[in-house]
């Protein structure tokens, strides 16, 4: 063997080793599906950050592998539409490894075999999950097992514009007494519509109450005030009571007739609703959740708690009848890991990293969502910037979750169409009740119990 042969042999070995090393250093791609949501960019962002953290650890350990997060931020109108798209993606084998979902969809994804049962993973890693606020786990449990990790939580409320209330002749004392009256059952849902309708009829505002324009969780807390319980725990089925439904739609009709609800509300875009409710100051009442404090503070240049409370009053959903209980709803968003993923464990650990107090606190504070860890509540940032969360927490006393039934999305969609029918003057209270009962029976069949 001469030197030429030896050299070419060495070059060959070096090239082979280089190729092998580069093959070993291949990225592990983790696909993340998250609805692009201005009220929570860090839902996906914290997973990306978790990837960075993990990569630093891998580099320190001298490992060749790196995690690469591929983010798919979808533009669905709401979490229900997004979940339908995601189900389709999974059905054609294009599902992600990690996905962000509204908690009530956990059941649907678990039932379809797309959400991984995380009991084992959570059980083995108490250091990573031990601080999560215990009742929140209920929101991601289906048939006794946890299929997700809560990502945030919140409180929903009616926001009243105090300046407009003052224009209606209410004193600061009257305004300050309102939340207490709602909680005591003295100020009912009908009173709220009387107030809002009056504001429209007197020309103080253009819209009495503005609510979300699409199907979503908000309406459940309103319906609860009329005795509508959507879930029968014992039978593990959805349910609806004809009488309670009629009472609820009678109220919707009353509010529509009083001009508290607008016929155009469900045809408006979120942008138009936000513009009318915040900067435009065209609405007396805006119905959504605590994270909207961020938008309101920005729109009205409010600095801190006192400034905010001079401008806005929060109400729980008032009861349907005098003496009734108010209601509220907490609607956690959750992370889930795909049961079809090739990197289930890795994906689950990324979720665990993203759910740690510090990253979660960043989401909580920047978007006014209530934190998921006990420890976050005492963090200086939360105490300093999260005054709204602290102030809203007592309202959770009246809160419930949505049921984790696979068909709750359809149930909500049908109720929403009934509300839309009444608000736009297409349906009477009775017709809306008949419509909802008819549609629930047709679409959900045996999954819903229809009671008188």
């Amino acid at each position, binding site marked *: 063997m001469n030197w030429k042969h030896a050299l070419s042999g060495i070059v060959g070995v070096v090239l082979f080793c280089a190729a092998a090393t580069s093959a070993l250093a291949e990225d592990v791609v983790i696909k993340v599906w998250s609805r692009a949501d201005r009220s929570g960019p860090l839902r996906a962002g914290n997973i990306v950050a978790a990837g960075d953290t993990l990569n630093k650890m891998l580099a320190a350990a001298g490992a060749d592998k790196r995690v690469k997060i591929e983010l798919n931020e979808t533009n669905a109108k709401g979490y229900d539409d997004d979940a*339908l798209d995601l*189900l*389709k993606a*999974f*059905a*054609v084998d294009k599902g992600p490894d990690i996905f962000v979902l509204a908690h009530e969809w956990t059941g*649907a994804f678990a039932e*379809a075999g*797309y959400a991984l049962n995380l009991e084992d993973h959570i059980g083995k890693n108490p250091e990573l999950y031990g601080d999560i606020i215990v009742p929140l786990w209920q929101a991601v449990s289906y048939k006794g097992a946890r299929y997700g990790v809560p990502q945030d939580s919140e409180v929903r409320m009616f926001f009243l514009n105090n300046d407009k209330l003052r224009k209606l002749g209410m004193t600061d004392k009257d305004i300050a007494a309102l939340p207490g009256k709602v909680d005591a059952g003295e100020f009912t849902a009908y009173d709220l519509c009387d107030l809002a309708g009056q504001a429209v009829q007197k020309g103080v505002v253009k819209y009495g109450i503005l609510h979300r324009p699409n199907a979503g969780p908000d309406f459940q807390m309103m319906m609860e005030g009329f005795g509508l319980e959507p879930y029968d725990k014992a039978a593990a089925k959805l349910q609806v009571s004809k009488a309670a439904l009629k009472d609820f739609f009678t109220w919707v009709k009353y509010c529509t007739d009083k001009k508290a609800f607008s*016929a*155009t509300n*469900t*045809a408006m875009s979120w942008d138009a609703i936000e513009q009318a409710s915040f900067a435009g100051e065209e609405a007396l009442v805006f119905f959504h959740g605590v994270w909207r404090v961020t938008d309101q503070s920005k729109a009205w240049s409010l600095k801190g708690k006192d400034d905010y409370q001079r401008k806005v009053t929060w109400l729980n959903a008032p009861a349907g009848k005098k003496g009734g209980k108010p209601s509220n709803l907490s609607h956690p968003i959750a992370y889930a890991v795909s049961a079809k993923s090739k990197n289930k464990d890795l994906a689950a650990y990324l979720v665990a990293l993203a759910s740690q107090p510090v990253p979660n606190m960043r989401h909580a504070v920047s978007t006014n969502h209530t934190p998921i860890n006990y420890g976050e509540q005492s963090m200086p940032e939360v105490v300093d910037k999260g005054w709204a969360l602290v102030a809203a927490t007592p309202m959770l006393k009246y809160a419930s979750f949505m049921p984790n039934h696979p068909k709750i999305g*359809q149930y909500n*969609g049908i109720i929403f*169409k009934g509300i*839309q*029918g009444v608000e*736009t*003057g*297409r*349906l009477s209270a009775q017709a809306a009740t008949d419509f909802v009962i*008819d549609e629930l*029976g*047709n*679409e959900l069949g045996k999954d819903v119990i229809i009671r008188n």
Partner: protein
Amino acid sequence: MPDFARAQLRRQRINFGLFLGPALALLFLFFVAPIVIDLVLAFTDMGRTLQVSKLTLENFERMFTRDSRLLGALGVTFIFVLTTLTVFNVTFALLLALVTTAVPRQLGAFFRAVWLLPRMSPSVVYALLWLWVVDPNERGLLNQIVVHVFGMPPIDLRNNHPLLVIILANGFIGASLGMLIFTSAIRSIPEHLFHAARVDGAGSLAIVRHITLPAMRWPISYMTIHQTLSLLVSFEYILLITGGGPFYDTTVFSLYAYRRAFESGEYAYGAALSLVLVAIGVVAALAMWRLMDMQKLLQPPRIEVH
């Protein structure tokens, strides 16, 4: 078989594949295949997870016995198709063709181009313009006129007269196709007939009635059938402008199938509804074919000049 005959046959086959192949492939891919898939899906229970667990007749049982929205959707479809077709896609299109051919040639071409503009712009842009036109606030184009010119309170056409809005939106864009076809039909009438009529003392209206319209029978019949079928299945502007609402007020049958499939995730039921729509389309086309005696149009001419 002699060699040259065999070669000729081969050449014919190659030509067949070459010239008809692409069209046949497209026809199969976008027409036959979807109908076959739809036909199969309609008899399954495919829901939101796209999984099929059984073959069933339930969708049809539900459609014919329990679906209380179906009649409403059929009614809306009937009004929508009939009005858009008669008022815009045929009558207004004919009027446009008559007017733009009666004015000087370049002016006519200019106006036709203007009417074609919406067809050239993307559907979403066209729909957004309509949304702005009928916006219930003072910002809407229509309301700017209503409020500032007539001093009346703003009107909300989208909520109060939603069918009118979708008929107008579809009609104004739909008329342009008829306008083109009718214009070329008018242009193909031998010029000397017009001159002869003028010499005989016919006025403009008499010329339209006795020369132009009789020559338009086939284009009008063709456009009627074509546009009926097209209106029956198209819902993009409706979806973009009203979303089928308020409530179900502008949900035509095709949009109803879409909403069931893609809003509620009941894909099999949506497929069953679409299948019925295909059947309605076929029946409507055959009936109109018969009614308008279209067979005659396709007959070979009795006299052939060689």
